[in-house]
């Protein structure tokens, strides 16, 4: 992903973490570090390159040790583990691809996939549309706009633990705020987190509460990058507000839409912590997601090998989705990546 930013060539503010590096802007690479190798005798040149290697690695090594030691190395190790049966104490038994084969016929995993897909289908479109809607609404100078913005953005700092406590309180069937409102307006009381067909909806609502700020802020930045002349031209041509939004603004936002969609999808299929702090997978396993199942397999049942295999399966799916969207948006000339 080479960053949404390439679209406008101006600001990679909405760039993904992955991508802006491969862009094409001017790069002020220093030429200082390069030794002037033409005039230096071979022995000295060697010593100099050794010294520059020592200096370079001195700068990067401390951080590299942490990152490689806690990401790259465990990722490789996880793959080895996924080919074993091991509970962390006894002996490690190599089982080849048995863990991956087991995934094919694991009904609980299939149910977890279904719940994850349900959550993704609920969360991703609503979070993108809500972000777009809020960005359009907040993109104006009226009094109190600062208060509106703060109120909408501040839930972004709420942790999963905090959101979980708030969710179980607000949606408590007996005295929760939401049922209280329903009671006052004369509607029937709901079970919410205790009802298998409503629990995932509640989790989606509270995820939106915490994350609307993210899509909104990205759309806000993008809206402000749209050239004013485009909208003026549309107005002169007789387009009304609605038409100029759908025919001018929205197409201009396509790369950002592609970016936030993929970003939210990757986040959604990894849902774990809000499930842990609200339902712990219940009721009747209705909110058990893939990562929750993986966590249960690895750390409750101590099936380290199988847990790793599930994690790798999910990683593969994530990569496929990412590559798929990138290729699709390239082909349809949406220069998002």
């Amino acid at each position, binding site marked *: 992903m080479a960053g949404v930013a390439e679209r406008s060539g101006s600001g990679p503010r909405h760039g993904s973490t992955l991508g802006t590096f491969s862009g094409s802007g001017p790069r002020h690479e220093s030429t200082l570090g390069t030794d002037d190798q033409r005039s230096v005798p071979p022995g000295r040149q060697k010593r100099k390159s050794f010294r520059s290697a020592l200096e370079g690695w001195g700068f990067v090594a401390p951080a590299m040790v942490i990152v490689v030691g806690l990401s790259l190395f465990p990722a490789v190790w996880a793959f080895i583990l996924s080919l074993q049966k091991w509970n962390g104490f006894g002996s490690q038994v190599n089982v080849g691809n048995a863990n991956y084969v087991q995934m094919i016929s694991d009904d609980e995993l299939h149910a977890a996939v279904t719940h994850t897909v349900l959550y993704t289908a609920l969360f991703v479109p609503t979070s993108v549309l809500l972000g777009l809607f809020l960005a359009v609404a907040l993109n104006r100078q009226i009094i109190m706009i600062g208060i509106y913005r703060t109120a909408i953005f501040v839930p972004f700092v709420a942790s999963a633990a905090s959101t979980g406590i708030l969710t179980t309180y607000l949606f408590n069937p007996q005295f929760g705020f939401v049922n209280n409102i329903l009671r006052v307006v004369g509607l029937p009381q709901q079970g919410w987190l205790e009802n298998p067909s409503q629990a995932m909806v509640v989790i989606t609502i509270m995820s939106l509460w915490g994350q609307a700020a993210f899509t909104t802020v990205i759309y806000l930045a993008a809206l402000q990058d749209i050239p004013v002349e485009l909208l003026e031209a549309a107005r002169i041509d007789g387009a009304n507000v609605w038409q100029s939004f759908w025919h001018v603004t929205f197409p201009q936002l396509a790369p950002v839409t592609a970016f936030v969609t993929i*970003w939210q999808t990757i986040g959604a299929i990894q849902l774990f912590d809000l499930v842990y702090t609200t339902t712990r997978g219940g009721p009747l396993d209705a909110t058990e997601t893939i990562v929750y199942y993986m966590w249960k397999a690895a750390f409750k049942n101590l099936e380290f090998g199988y847990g790793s295999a599930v994690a790798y399966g999910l990683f593969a799916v994530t990569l496929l989705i990412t590559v798929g969207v990138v290729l699709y948006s390239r082909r349809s000339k949406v220069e998002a990546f």
Partner: protein
Amino acid sequence: MAIMISRPTGAIPARPVGRSGSRWWHLLLAPIAFLFALPFVQMFLTALTPVSEINKFPPRFFPAHLTLEGFIKLFETSGILLWLRNTVVVSSVGVLSHLVLCSLAGYGFARLRFRGRNLGFLAIVATIMIPTQLLMVPTYILFARLGLIDTLGAAIVPWLASAFGIFLMRQFFLSLPAELEEAAVLDGCTRLQILFRIVLPLARPALATLAIFTLLGSWNDLVWPLIAINNDQAFTLQLGITNFQGARRTDWSLLMAGNVIATLPLIAFFIVAQKQFLATMTFSGLKG
């Protein structure tokens, strides 16, 4: 493409809109803002409501009396202050270490030329793609062998540096003109002096982004402490209040008092430094 962090989103003036339309936008935005504020408002109110009132039926929207008994009980019967201290330690060590180590590495990758530089940077970029759940099992085993499990160290070590931080700082350094440093080299400054005296003072926006990213991530982290720490002396705040949910299920004013202590510092910081938070947000899907 060089990363530009100097233009926080919040600072961009919105396009002015005709006066006539503004009343409708208020009618739309005020209820939405109210809904978004509601959970936190409920959190503060409930923390100050006597338990006897919370469990009454029918429930009230606003408490008849306010009390601090939830907070008092929280301080008396739980380790909340210890957990607060633990979280402050994790976050401050994490932020400081991130700023130093990622600046050094980012500068090395941006400006120094040495054998293995490109390979090293490729390794960093590759790790950005790796999702955390893939790392949980091996990291747990690794930490168990290092004797870190059930200690605060288990919560600290993963926040010492990150691929994202290295990447961010490198991109920022690449966007600075190298001429500034060339003069310093001619004056005989060492690379470290150049970094700390010339480059870092210019890198404040990037450092702010990195600090907020690390603060938010380390303060709110739940998944990793949940796996690695099972000893309530080493609990972080998030772990502590999550544990309450099982142990003190119906004691809502105490639960919410704990929630206030875990959340209020970040809420206050967000309100003070909103621009920097928004800039950080556009930069990374922090919660993704």
